[in-house]
């Protein structure tokens, strides 16, 4: 057989992408495509499991049993989402343990939003409404991503996540309709989470270094700014409906474009947090490391038990 040239392989690959044919694990793919996916999916997986921490902070202090059961179910979902995503990276040949080590050693990134503290119960509302709302906006187009296992994981995640945003909005609505103190608590949470939520979509298109290539490969379907705009447009009326105020004096509706215009985002804060200097970066990674260390004896015991049992099965077979 004639050796197939790299150029031919690459043009066949791009032509599959252009025809919306999904790429599956054993198909040929350019190394950059593989590495881009491993980076993006593992960051996504890290965000899911680090995202459990700010909410886990409130499970024992939920105001009633219903809220507690809902929050537990949500945090459990995030763990499942992390697992789907780590599994997707493994189909690309990545090693899950190495990826987790990268997170713990500060070599990997995760969503900057989880480096903000959760100071009051209202933050559970703000996170569900805004953070999960922003995540859903990002994730729905990823269900059509060119890489099959990632797209399938996202379908599952989106299906499960639809209740996350609603439960958050419900918390905000209850507080906003409650006593003046409760409404103040909801407003305070919105004030603190609004800008970090907008930053979740990543840098402006002009400065986003991966966007163009990712769009060509159909890993991404929309730019960061397009998704951010969509989020602002749907969220502002939701805040108005429950009587909360978006913390942006310059926010206005633009009749010409049919979009809201916001103040410029403080990108300096974004980069500070991404680069490890947010309010809770150290606390989050320390909690992850501690969880891994404290669970080691359980993992070891389970493995020892499995080895012992398979030895017994061999003897009695």
């Amino acid at each position, binding site marked *: 057989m004639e050796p197939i040239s790299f150029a031919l392989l690459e043009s066949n690959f791009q032509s599959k992408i252009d025809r919306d044919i999904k790429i*599956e694990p054993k*198909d040929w793919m350019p190394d950059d495509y593989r590495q881009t996916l491993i980076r993006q999916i593992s960051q996504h997986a890290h965000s899911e499991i680090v995202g459990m921490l700010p909410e886990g902070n409130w499970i024992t202090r939920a105001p009633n049993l219903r809220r507690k059961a809902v929050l537990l179910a949500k945090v*459990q979902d995030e763990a499942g989402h992390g697992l789907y995503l780590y599994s997707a990276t493994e189909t690309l040949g990545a090693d899950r343990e190495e990826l987790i080590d990268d997170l713990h050693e500060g070599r990997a990134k995760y969503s900057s939003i989880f480096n903000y503290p959760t100071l009051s119960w209202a933050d559970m509302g703000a996170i569900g409404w805004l953070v999960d709302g922003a995540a859903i906006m990002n994730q729905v187009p990823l269900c059509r991503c060119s890489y099959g296992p990632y797209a399938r994981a996202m379908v599952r995640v989106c299906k*499960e996540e639809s209740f996350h945003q609603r439960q958050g909005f419900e918390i905000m609505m209850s507080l906003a309709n409650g006593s003046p103190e409760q409404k103040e608590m909801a407003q305070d949470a919105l004030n603190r989470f609004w800008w970090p939520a907008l930053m979740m979509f990543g840098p402006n298109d002009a400065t986003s270094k991966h966007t163009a290539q990712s769009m060509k490969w159909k890993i991404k379907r929309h730019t960061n700014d397009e998704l951010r705009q969509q989020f602002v447009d749907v969220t502002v009326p939701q805040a108005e409906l429950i009587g909360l105020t978006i913390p942006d004096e310059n926010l206005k509706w633009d009749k010409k474009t049919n979009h809201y215009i916001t103040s410029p985002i403080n990108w300096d804060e974004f980069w500070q947090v991404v680069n490890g200097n947010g309010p809770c970066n150290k606390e989050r990674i320390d909690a992850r490391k501690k969880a891994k260390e404290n669970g080691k004896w359980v993992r070891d015991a389970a493995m020892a038990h499995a080895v012992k049992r398979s030895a017994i099965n061999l003897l009695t077979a």
Partner: protein
Amino acid sequence: MSEKEWPLWEVFIRSKQGLNHKHVGSLRAPDAQLAVDNARDVYTRRSEGISIWVVASNNVFASDAAEADAFYDPANSKVYRHPTFYDVPDGISHM
């Protein structure tokens, strides 16, 4: 990196009686029983299944993706295997 990583398992779920088990994803677990237990927690939290199969991933032998064109080629020329290949005159029903 851990010295001994838990093996990888492929998970198949039967969503209801009468349907096939269908591949839904994978997970790591020390043995088959814990793989089933974990699969229940990860893949059937919303009543998605009534039966779970797990198969150690290294026991899956797959066809070669690079050879797919040649491998499945023989079926392409056999359109007579499909009912639409045959002409049925007007007026014939129940066929």
